[in-house]
């Protein structure tokens, strides 16, 4: 589970940085990585589990920030749409 958490954290980071409007998938992958890492650390504390949690948290945070930055562009479109309707 610790190794899986680390791998998911790395994948989530890649998706967060390069995913564009699909970087919300990085949030979901990162969350799974956090859960797996925390479960691994709770059952068998190890450095790999801690690293997996940290990597997944960083990836999830970046994905969230970048996703909402993309969303900001869409929000302007939404506002214009609302004024047309």
């Amino acid at each position, binding site marked *: 589970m610790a190794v899986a958490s680390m791998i998911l954290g790395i994948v989530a980071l890649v998706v967060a940085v390069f995913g564009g409007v699909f970087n919300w998938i990085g*949030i979901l992958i990162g969350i799974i990585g956090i*859960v797996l890492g925390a*479960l691994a650390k709770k059952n068998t504390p190890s450095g790999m589990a801690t690293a997996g949690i940290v990597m997944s948290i960083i990836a999830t945070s970046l994905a969230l920030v970048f996703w909402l930055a993309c969303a900001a562009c869409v929000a302007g479109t939404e506002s214009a749409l*609302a004024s047309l309707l």
Partner: protein
Amino acid sequence: MFPYIEIFGRTIGMYGVLMALGIFLAGFLTIRYYKKLGQPSEDVFIVGAIGIGIAIICGNLLYIGVTYPFSYILSQIKAGDFSFLGSGIVFYGGLIGGVVGAFLGFRVARCQAKLFIEAAVPYIPLGHAVGRIGCLMAGCCYGMEYDGPLAVYYTRSLLDVSPDQGYFPVQPLEGAINIVICCVLLILRKRGRGETLLPMYLCMYSVSRFLLEFLRGDQHRGIYFGVSMSQWISLALFATGAVWVLLKTVLNRKCKTEENGPMSSCLPK
């Protein structure tokens, strides 16, 4: 106001940065108190991750539901354009989704829900207050038109608001109210009222949100029978919280006055 910063050529939305900061602050304080209760911090990561994940999904779905017409959503899906996903979040959708997600997280983490709720609930309004600064920066969730003291002028906003028109500072006002709610919940926790923290928070926030909605100017959020979607949700959450507190008070009094016979009506400790 100040919706973006540029870092190494990458546009970073202040809304997302402050939302993440709010989550980190609430999470850090929750872990600190939860460890004082002798519980493992890993539970906070598990419950927090699942709760926040479902909160974001539900908050976004509610935002899409109240903002876009169904025909627009269908046309975007047919065109393969999913950019409307993640266009915004409604706090209530996030709160309800977060509570559902947290209860799922309790099962995954196999932790005591009562202790977790006691640790986490007072810091939810604190995180929310930080997130509202993000709304102020982005120019979303803006107030009604207003030219009095402390009026906000959105010279750089993501939304269709006039830069020459002043708006009521509803976001910082809601942030300040949330900080007061946080302080009240911390006092209640210190007085040993941990069991009623969640329903008390639902009652306090729903009343404040119902009243603040009258000061909001972003009417495209959805108005139904003269009342906004958030006001309808506020009414439902207040009723839920009030009934919860009343039931707990009545049942606890019944436990104390019962001297003989089965204690089946009493809440488990």
